[in-house]
């Protein structure tokens, strides 16, 4: 009896493991398909699903592969993809650093200081979490227009760097991890408020800081509607908008489109792989406990 029980148990284990592998394959195959499509020539594009078969090494027709799409993307002046990469890096870096700083400072004030507006602000921050972003599209566009900030990076970045969500996250993190005694000891030792924040508080929430930087970086890198609305000059477009334009112009040139997509998602993937431990820890700590 006991033997058959463990035998069925092992069979079930293997079946479930197989199911897991199947799910992993379903998740990864679109990536493989994307990369393969980006390096196939026009002649071999639809001749095979992934890489074209042939007589070469590993049974692949290596001559049917090309890096030409990437070359065209970066050298054809009318596409300006190099420019879009630079724009995306600039836009995502600057806005993630500013957003994180703004959120960490705001969260610190709400978590650790007794001052008159504290309760009101905390309530306001919480209440604003319920406002959907799409509601603000029209009025904030009008506001950016009135400030004369349309078609500028300032108009793109500035409205996004004060997220209530971030302030709330940092408030929660600081509330429980940083003891008040520590801050007061630093004050008695003559540490100024600003220095205290940068040299004592921020290092204590380093994992959270890393996770939030990464979230906001990816958010900006992947954001479409805001730059689509605010920016007008193609030279200023980040990748998400540039690739939408590319699709509009070269809708049938799949090799080119997939090469552009590879260029657009590879940096974020790489960054995530470098920082993934911080990220998953930070993501779940903020969301599930709160």
């Amino acid at each position, binding site marked *: 009896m006991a033997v058959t029980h463990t035998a069925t148990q092992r069979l079930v284990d293997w079946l479930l493991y197989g199911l897991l592998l199947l799910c992993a394959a379903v998740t990864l195959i679109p990536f493989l398909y994307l990369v393969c499509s980006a390096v196939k020539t026009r002649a071999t594009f639809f001749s095979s699903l992934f890489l074209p078969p042939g007589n070469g090494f590993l049974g692949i027709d290596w001559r049917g592969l090309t890096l030409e799409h990437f070359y065209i993307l970066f050298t054809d002046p009318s596409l300006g993809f190099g420019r879009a990469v630079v724009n995306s890096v600039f836009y995502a870096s600057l806005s993630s650093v500013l957003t994180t700083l703004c959120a960490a400072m705001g969260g610190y004030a709400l978590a650790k200081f007794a001052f008159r507006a504290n309760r009101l602000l905390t309530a306001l921050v919480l209440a*604003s979490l319920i406002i*959907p972003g799409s509601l*603000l599209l029209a009025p904030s566009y009008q506001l950016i227009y009135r400030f004369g900030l349309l078609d500028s990076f300032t108009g793109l970045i500035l409205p996004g760097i004060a997220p209530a969500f971030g302030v709330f996250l940092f408030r929660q993190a600081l509330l429980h991890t940083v003891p008040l005694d520590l801050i007061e000891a630093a004050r008695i030792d003559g540490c100024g408020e600003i220095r205290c924040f940068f040299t004592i508080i921020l290092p204590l929430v380093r994992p959270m800081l890393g996770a939030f930087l990464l979230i906001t970086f990816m958010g900006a890198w992947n954001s479409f509607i805001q730059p689509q609305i605010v920016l007008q000059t193609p030279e200023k477009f980040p990748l998400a908008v540039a690739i939408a334009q590319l699709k509009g112009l070269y809708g049938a040139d799949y090799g080119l489109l997939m090469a552009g997509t590879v260029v657009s998602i590879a940096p974020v993937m790489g960054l995530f792989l470098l920082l993934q431990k911080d990220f998953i820890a930070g993501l779940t700590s903020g969301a599930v406990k709160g």
Partner: protein
Amino acid sequence: MNRQLSTSHPRWAPYVFIAPFVLIFCTFMVYPLAQSIVLAMQQTFGPKTTVFVGLKNFTDLLADRFFWLAMRNTFVYAVATVALQVPLALGLAMLLNRPKLRGRALFRLIFFSPSLVGIVFVAMMFGLMFHEREGLVNVFLRVVMPHFPREFPWLQRYVMPALIIATLWMSVGFNMIYFLAALQGVDRDCLEAADVDGANAWQKFLAVILPAIAPVTGFVVLLSLLGSLQLFELPFILLNGPGPENRGLTVVMYLYQYGFEVGDLGYASAIGWTLALVLMGLTVLQRLLSREQ
């Protein structure tokens, strides 16, 4: 007053730390929010010229069949994606949460990886995957089902299933992370007690696990509902707009078209408020339900 809060600081200190946030928050969040109420009662021609029209935007909206079509599409999409992706995410998390599983961290990373791809880029990928003849999806279906037609016009006829498939690929792994965290919090003693009582896996799942993760499930359902009801980029890029016969027209896309293609920010704001009220209603409802439990 809370004893956790500092009182020994210089008076200016908290104001300096909160100032950048408050300044930008009030300018770009509180003010536009108030302004959106005003805008919803105006008709505008671009951002400059505005005319007061009172509640006309809302009465027009109620009679606007494209708005109702957009609402219908959006709700069909939202209900279908949530109904499919929540069980799938939970299932994946259960598979990953088995004791002594080899390669757990790698699997978790793999399942999470699609969430790193921005929705615009997901749309780019699926634009080719749903190619009517040679796309990966059709080739795969032809292999699995020999009678599957040689041409299957996903993006011309079967827009909604295409959007749902793309969304599932993109977001199941993200929601899985929440369930994984919740499952790790399920009381081990309870599970062992169920084992002792001779409960099978399904009974354990229904009686112990499901109640324990109910709060997180509620949270994930709400979050995915709020997200999918604001669908815009996926159909906008995948179909280059609302798609054939407006089958991919969503509420936010309609808002975008009115506000930024037609130039009527007033009507766009009325659409925004209608959607916002629905979303807020859902949030309040979820809060009430979770409190009852």
